[in-house]
């Protein structure tokens, strides 16, 4: 018995050591097991948020004054989340990205507080909450109370063409990794405030896997043959919000004076039409 136990211990240790930290999945560096649901899946439930600068720019970003007339509320420097820091635009698309950047104060769909699309919603600087059942996972976002419905029931994407702001999400488990296929997007959302964009042909593959019980590694592969020369990938960590009183509040910025239609600076009201 002792010999078998020792051998098991050695094998287990070797297995753990051979796993890269980001793919540990079952156990984190602290040795705490990831919570599991009754059906044995990793339990993604909880409130999560990124800590990065991807909302401003998914590529490397130097510190800069803010674009909104209050320079001290600047843009923080940040490391990019794009693999290799390179987005493989086709030449026409790179020119369009540069135009988007120049005109971002008016062209960015965020200035209207529209649904920001996927994956942008993930790294908006607001918390989001995941609720999980065996066949369905919902992600509730504080930002404009967006909801993602992720069906994990073996169903396939509805037949298109459909153009949705948040796409259509179908998930499946590959071991302890939740893999979500997202398609049926419109061409009206961007990736960030720096003008990075896609077309309605974009298809995403997201992978959610635990690093430890309070950290999820989030990877997303972007495919869009109309805009890019090859698929490319982003990755980042999602951190669990652990404050005992944490709960989602509201950020319905479309209702703010100055953003809501009828209150925008150039809206001239003609009552009684």
């Amino acid at each position, binding site marked *: 018995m002792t010999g078998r136990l020792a051998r098991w211990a050695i094998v287990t240790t070797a297995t753990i050591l051979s796993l890269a930290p980001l793919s540990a999945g079952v156990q984190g560096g602290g040795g705490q097991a990831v919570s599991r649901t*009754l059906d044995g899946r990793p339990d993604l*439930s909880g409130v999560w948020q990124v800590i990065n600068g991807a909302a401003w720019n998914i590529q490397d970003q130097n510190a800069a004054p803010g674009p909104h007339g209050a320079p001290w509320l600047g843009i923080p420097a940040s490391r990019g989340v794009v693999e290799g820091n390179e987005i493989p635009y086709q030449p026409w698309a790179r020119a369009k990205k540069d135009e988007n950047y120049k005109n971002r104060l008016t062209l960015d769909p965020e200035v*209207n*507080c*529209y*649904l920001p699309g996927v994956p942008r919603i993930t790294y908006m600087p607001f918390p989001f*909450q995941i*609720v999980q*059942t065996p066949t*369905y996972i*919902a992600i*509730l976002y504080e930002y*404009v*109370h*967006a*909801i993602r*419905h992720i*069906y994990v029931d073996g169903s396939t994407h509805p037949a298109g063409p459909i153009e*949705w*702001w*948040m796409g*259509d999400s179908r998930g499946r488990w590959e071991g302890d990794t939740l893999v979500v296929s997202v398609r049926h997007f419109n061409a*009206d959302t961007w990736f960030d405030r720096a003008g990075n964009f896609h077309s309605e042909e974009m298809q995403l593959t997201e992978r959610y896997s635990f690093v430890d019980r309070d950290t999820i590694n989030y990877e997303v592969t972007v495919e869009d043959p109309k805009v890019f020369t090859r698929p490319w990938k982003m990755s980042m960590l999602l951190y669990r919000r652990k404050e005992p*009183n944490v*709960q*989602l*509040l*509201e950020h*319905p910025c*479309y*209702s703010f004076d100055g953003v*809501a*239609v*009828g*209150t925008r600076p150039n*809206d*001239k*009201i*003609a*009552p*009684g*039409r």
Partner: protein
Amino acid sequence: MAHRWFGSAVAVVIAGTLMAPQYVGGQTATSAEKPWDPPRTRDGQPDIQGYWSQRSDITTYSIQAGFVDREEHTRIGGQNPQKGRPVIDPPSGVIPYQPWAAEKAQLHHAQHRQPSKPEYFDPVSRCFEEGVPRMNYQGNMRVLQFPNQIVILHEFNHHYRVIYLDGRPHVGDTLKLWMGDSRGRWEGNTLVVDVTNHNDKTWFDIVGSFHSDAMRVTERWTFTGPDRIDYVATIDDPKVFTQPWKLRVQIGRNKPEEQWESAICEGNKAVHVAFGLPW
């Protein structure tokens, strides 16, 4: 009869003890009269999960009794006038406004078809959130249930509510939320939700029935059968009303159906039309 009542009360208590010890204290006369025993979640709550929508034949046009509103609704909307009468208390079916508030409600009503400024235009038509209780008579909902929270997903304009059951206190008084701050508990077959921290911007209907940010809504979601929920909201707002009043909505179970995207602000032109703004 007396001993039969006693017997069933004992049975309820015993069943409660075995199945849901944490909820026994809340057994009410209503549940004793209607001894329907709902399926339960693993942690003992009545299992309220599934797909629901209102069956009361009421609309968000006007929640007050009165044929004038109904006639107007038919004329401008081309829909059948609502026959439901959501305001059940006071029995007149009329919201018990304080005098100044009745004047303001009349102003809203007079303005609602041709508003002179955006704040006189129905906030939902401006794509803002519905608030509680209006959300519950607008479109379908899906309920997910967990030991510490009940989550309601509304398809219309992707509203959601997280109703905490874990006894945590409400958020601070100065935080104001379109959908309020919800804390729930079970009393027998009734989910009682205390909703506070409302802002003063949501309306109860299109014609401008309104409240202040002092509003407190107590919702009672009573499971009366496998496919029925009797929903009563008590609206208490001493800044606007002369007394608390009650609104009732009958809710029925729907067949399971996927909720799909309902992007309202993104394509909304109602305000452009109302105020002659270029698209």
